[in-house]
């Protein structure tokens, strides 16, 4: 019986080929937009999370007397003898700031890194809070970073996993950073606070330990603006609440772009929802007309003994078939569009060093299945009311084609 109803639904679709084609095409476009949009938005979101972090912090907070160089990207605080309390910004509870990452920077010589007299910046950071160092990892060991691990700046030599002696103490090269163009970042040797603190005695040698290696002290902070906050608001709040600091703002254009793009993505989501809703309405209107056209056949089905559920089933099956096929075609269309996108824009972005991270395969498949199910659901919703109304009417009225 099910096969006969399925066959009936399929044959009905074939009766009005042009209309069925247009219906399937409209649903394919709608579900294609949803599928492609969802995958691209997630990919853009992931890429933005990495890409924008790679642009660095929005501002740097350092001791008031520290000398600073202006760079386009704030990735590392400037090395200085002056220090700040590690909880200085946290205690101030500045709402115009988002993520905050503290860093300790110690410039050392005779450390065993590079040539004998070469100075090197040992940069300590907290891996869990960091958002300016790790996004630049071009390669790393396949495990979480742990004490004793170091990350080398782009111009430092060292094989991944090899041993690096710093002041005679063995460390493991955990990762290497990509080229950033920021000198301190390029030449730095990065490690966790714990690893840097463990080097304290060796760095101090016979003299005193650098002040920044004292517990609860940091060289400075890298901070991100909270959504909607302006650099001026944050600067004012920091200077008002934290004494003895200097605020160095990064490129304000970048924070503007970050915030603007986030708003744009929200707008695209809203447009996608609107487009899908309009497709749903169109499908609903179309199925209403189809049910009206089929009144006599539905009446005949009722007359020969079809139950109300069976009458509904015939129409719902037809709708699911049409919109489900549309959904599948939409996903295929979406895959083709994304292949095109990958070969053009993504290729270009990667060539200019902007990473584009696609959503992983399981999630892509989940989006595809979701788009198909959503398309089929639109068919069900579209046909359900007119078919339900028809199924409630007297068979004789339907057979005679009465309104």
């Amino acid at each position, binding site marked *: *019986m099910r096969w*006969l109803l399925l*066959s*009936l639904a399929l*044959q*009905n679709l*074939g*009766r009005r080929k042009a209309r069925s084609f247009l219906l399937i095409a409209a649903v394919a476009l709608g579900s294609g937009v949803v599928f492609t949009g969802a995958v691209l938005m997630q990919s853009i979101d992931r890429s933005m999370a990495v890409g924008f972090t790679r642009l660095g912090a929005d501002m740097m907070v350092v001791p008031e007397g520290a000398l600073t160089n202006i760079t386009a990207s704030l990735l590392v605080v400037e090395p200085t003898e002056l220090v700040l309390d590690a909880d200085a910004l946290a205690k101030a509870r500045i709402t115009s700031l988002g993520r905050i990452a503290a860093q300790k920077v110690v410039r050392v010589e005779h450390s065993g890194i590079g040539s004998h007299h070469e100075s090197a910046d040992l940069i300590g950071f907290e891996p869990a809070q960091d958002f300016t160092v790790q996004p630049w990892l071009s390669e790393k060991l396949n495990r979480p970073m742990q004490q004793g691990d170091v990350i080398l700046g782009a111009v430092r030599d060292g094989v991944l996993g090899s041993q690096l002696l710093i002041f005679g103490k063995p460390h493991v090269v955990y990762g290497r950073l990509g080229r950033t163009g920021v000198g301190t970042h390029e030449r730095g040797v990065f490690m966790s606070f714990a690893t840097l603190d463990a080097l304290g005695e060796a760095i101090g040698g016979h003299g005193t330990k650098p002040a920044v290696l004292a517990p609860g002290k940091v060289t400075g902070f890298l901070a991100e603006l909270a959504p909607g906050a302006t650099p001026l608001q944050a600067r004012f709040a920091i200077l008002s609440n934290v004494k003895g600091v200097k605020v160095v703002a990064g490129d304000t254009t970048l924070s503007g772009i970050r915030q603007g793009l986030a708003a744009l993505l929200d707008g695209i989501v809203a447009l996608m929802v609107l487009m899908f809703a309009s497709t749903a309405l169109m499908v609903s209107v179309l199925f209403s007309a189809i049910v009206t056209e089929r009144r006599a*056949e539905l009446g*005949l*089905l*009722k*007359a*020969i*003994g*079809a*139950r*109300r*559920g*069976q009458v509904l089933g015939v129409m719902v099956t037809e709708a699911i078939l049409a919109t489900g096929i549309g959904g599948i075609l939409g996903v295929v269309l979406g895959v083709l569009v994304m292949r095109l996108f990958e070969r053009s824009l993504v290729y270009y972005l990667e060539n200019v060093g902007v990473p584009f991270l696609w959503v992983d395969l399981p999630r892509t498949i989940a989006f595809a299945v979701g788009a198909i199910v959503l398309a089929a659901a639109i068919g069900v919703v579209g046909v359900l009311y007119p078919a339900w109304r028809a199924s409630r009417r*007297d*068979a*004789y*009225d339907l*057979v005679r084609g009465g309104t």
Partner: protein
Amino acid sequence: MLSCRALRKSYVAERGEVLAVDGIDLDVEAGRYAAIIGRSGSGKSSLMAMVGGLSRPSDGSVTIDGTDIWGLSDDKLAAFRNRRIGFVFQFASLLPTLRLVDNVALPAMLGKRGDGDTYGKAAMLLGRMGLGDHLDAYPSECSAGEQRRAAIARALINDPVLLLADEPTSDLDEQTEIEIMDELLAVNRELGTTLVLVTHNLALAEQAEQIVHIAGGTIAS
């Protein structure tokens, strides 16, 4: 076998309520051939629709084989129609997207009585109607007469006790009309199926064992 009491049907039209059937009492004994005749708009088709469980009466009752059909739930009434009543309508009432054999088998399958033999029986009935070589044909590939004979075959697939035919030959030529009537009468005589024919053609009604003349929604004679 068939008993109608105080059957009444009114419609709400733009000009107000229209009374199509006004308090009809009717009895047809099992195995008989009854003809309901009357002019267009007399209410005979409305009467047949209520008798067949296709249109709910405004008032009154219809009892078939002891079952008050309008006292049944929607699904039970559908099942009753499926098992006990066969219909032949005044138009080509086959589903155009199904083959003749599928159309004939459909009521058995809707009633979940479809088994391995359903298609065999459908083929046998089509053969009986002279359509043995048209099993796989689609309705659009058949003449009006062939379609009407296929509709009779479909009406018989579940061995109904009552066969209702509403102007089954109204759009057919004279020769085909005779052939279709011969088929219906053969069903009535050979299978013992009660036949109720609605027609405005007095010549067709002449062979009936019971003639009911409807005028203005009531029985005139």
